[in-house]
């Protein structure tokens, strides 16, 4: 069961940046992102999230988001998706970085979730 990371933010630059931050530490972890609305504005897009889910090579995804409305759109994508998506109410950058570093080091999901618990802020 391979694990990947999904980043959802209201702003495309944030997702691009988080992906850069992660890839330095976790070059082998599949990371896909959905940032901004379909027309490049600030917001989130279920379509973009679905594309990011499909584009991720992993079998299961650990998902991180910025604000509550991103979570709602993530949950819609989660319902439409066959791929298991685990959603974490943690700090976006710090949570995604933590998960990526642990995935790269070969740590299992249950252990990653333990490490994410102190980052829960939502």
């Amino acid at each position, binding site marked *: 069961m391979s694990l990947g990371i999904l980043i959802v933010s209201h702003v495309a630059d944030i997702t691009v940046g988080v992906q850069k931050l992660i890839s330095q530490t976790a070059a082998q972890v599949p990371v896909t992102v959905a940032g901004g609305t379909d027309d490049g504005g600030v*917001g989130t897009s279920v*379509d973009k999230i679905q594309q990011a889910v499909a584009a991720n090579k992993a079998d299961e995804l650990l998902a991180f988001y910025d604000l509550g*409305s991103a979570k709602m759109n993530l949950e819609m994508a989660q319902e439409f998706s066959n791929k298991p998506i685990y959603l974490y109410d943690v700090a976006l950058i710090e949570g995604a970085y933590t998960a990526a570093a642990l995935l790269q080091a070969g740590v299992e999901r249950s252990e990653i979730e333990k490490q994410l618990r102190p980052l829960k802020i939502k």
Partner: protein
Amino acid sequence: MALTLENTLNWLHGFDQVIEAKKAYLSQLDTPIGDGDHGNNLARGAAAIEAALEKNKPTDLTAALKTIAMALVSKVGGASGALYGTAFLEMAKTSQKTQALPDLLAAGLAGIQKRGSATTGEKTMVDVWAPVVTAAQAGELDQAVVDQAVQATKEMQATKGRASYVGEKSVGHLDPGAVSSGYLFTELLKTGVDK
């Protein structure tokens, strides 16, 4: 009190027009307690609904509700897209069993609450949907119910959505999603479905 393909199309055409007309006002309401985009978000959704209904020409109520839901989900891009979208998706599902308005609206409200986990008093669209459903179930839905529900959000303190970030400072402002939900139910009443 039943939704039909015909009154639902009328309803949404009316809503889409009002949203287009009130776009700037809704975004303005969203400025002091949010990010100032509610009108623009919904206007994208309204245009998408019109385009989808024109393109797909649904032939039954369920198909119409589903088309509306998907247009909202794909094009709105804010919290309101997921919330209104889920409301119409749940109404579409329920419409396979019943066309009764109170049941359909109750399904819509349940969808909004599933998606956003807000209850009444949190200064969101739930504060309009909940009293509207209650009134519809009692056969007492009218414009006054809608207007009062919308106005009541003014003195509430937000504990959900972006307005919750400004805490006490949210008091004294109408909730934009409550106002747009008010338009939705005003247009519903204009179709005469409650008669």
